[in-house]
């Protein structure tokens, strides 16, 4: 049987990808940020899963305004890194896991989450920056990845509780897959940031750290936080954080009687470009 063994949470700021691609990680501006991911890289190397289920959002790359799916699951064999206007990132292509992805879609849709199925898609920094942060610059990514894109660009975006419940459905779907696979689920985006308007540059450390605390200790309650609180307190674009609740809802303790996860690593840093970077690794026991 397949099983979700751990969840990883991280921001996916595009400038981080550029810093890696241009070899700037040792510069004083970036060094403290990348130092915070060193333990995470060591952990992933020692705990490489068979598949990563990667929750992220597309930033007007694969999806323009022509079609905006709220939840979209990639079932393709591979995904090229996208050209977002600066040229494609020089990173490996992303290899998918069509069999597990199709199984999850089959299960989750019958659990009332109406996913969009995607067979062809370029993946942008939302997906590739977390991989770079966790893996560095390998010739190939360490395992297949199932991209799961959430609309957080066009409001209304899905609610925190909808995301949390979706995580539970994903956990159930993975657990019913016959092959003995070790799966990690990653939730990405955030933390504080606002990229537009006179309030651009907003950072709220207190909000972010309270979010991390509650994500660890009481995610079901955190899932009830209304969107406007994210947007008002941590910047309009911080509403991306609802995606972390999908990963959190897929952990054992989201089910009655499930054991609380172990916190393997926690890190917070300001700034990366306009954004506060948060990172967490939770392991099922």
């Amino acid at each position, binding site marked *: 049987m397949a099983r979700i063994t751990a969840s990883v949470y991280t921001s996916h700021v*595009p*400038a981080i990808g550029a810093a890696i691609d241009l070899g700037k990680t040792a510069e004083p501006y970036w060094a403290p940020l990348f130092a915070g991911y060193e333990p995470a890289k060591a952990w992933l190397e020692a705990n490489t899963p068979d598949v990563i289920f990667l929750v992220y959002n597309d*930033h*007007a*790359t694969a999806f*323009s*305004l*022509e079609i905006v799916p709220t939840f979209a699951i990639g079932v393709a064999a591979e995904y090229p890194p996208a*050209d*977002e*206007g*600066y040229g494609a990132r020089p990173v490996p292509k992303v290899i998918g896991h069509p069999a597990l992805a199709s199984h999850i879609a089959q299960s989750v849709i019958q659990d009332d989450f109406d996913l969009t199925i995607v067979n062809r898609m370029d993946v942008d920094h939302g997906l590739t920056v977390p991989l770079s942060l966790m893996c560095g610059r390998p010739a190939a990514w360490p395992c297949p990845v199932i991209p799961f894109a959430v609309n957080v*660009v*066009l*409001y*209304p975006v899905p609610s925190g509780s909808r995301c949390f419940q979706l995580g539970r459905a994903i956990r159930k779907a993975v657990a019913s897959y016959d092959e003995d696979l070790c799966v990690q689920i990653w939730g990405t985006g955030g933390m*504080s940031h*606002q*990229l*537009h*308007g*006179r*309030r*651009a*540059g*907003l*950072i*709220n*450390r*207190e*909000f972010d750290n309270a979010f991390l605390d509650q994500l660890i200790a009481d995610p079901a309650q955190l899932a009830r936080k*209304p*969107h*406007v609180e994210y*947007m*008002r*307190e*941590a910047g*309009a*674009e911080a509403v991306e954080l609802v995606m972390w609740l999908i990963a959190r809802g897929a952990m054992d303790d989201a089910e009655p009687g499930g054991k609380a996860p172990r916190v393997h690593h926690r890190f917070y840093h*300001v*700034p990366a*470009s*306009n954004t*506060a970077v948060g990172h967490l690794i939770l392991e099922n026991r």
Partner: protein
Amino acid sequence: MALDKPYLDIPGTTIFDMDESRKGYWLNQFCMSLMKAENRMRFKANERAYLDEWPMTEAQKQAVMARDLGRCIESGGNIYFLGKLGASDGRSFQYMAGSMTGMTEEAYRAMMMGGGRSIEGNRFTGEKK
């Protein structure tokens, strides 16, 4: 009956919702077209002519040509789409975000290095700092 939009009183902030999206559809789709190198070249060669191929409002076209991202946002633009316009000019997201704040590029960068803009006084329109 009007729908509740509890985010309208957040200062200096435009939530890109269904109404904004409707207003900015062609502006954003124009931006999207700049992901193709040949379109970037055509746009750069004659901005006005390229913009006239799109059913955008005159105000949107003027805002694009002036690279006034604040006005682009006001007329329905979304920052992730407008990012394609900035990328065509070789601009970073930090430059683009900073350009809407009324601060210089240096002052904005220094603010971010110092921990970013404080939330105090920035929660509600008309709030006293």
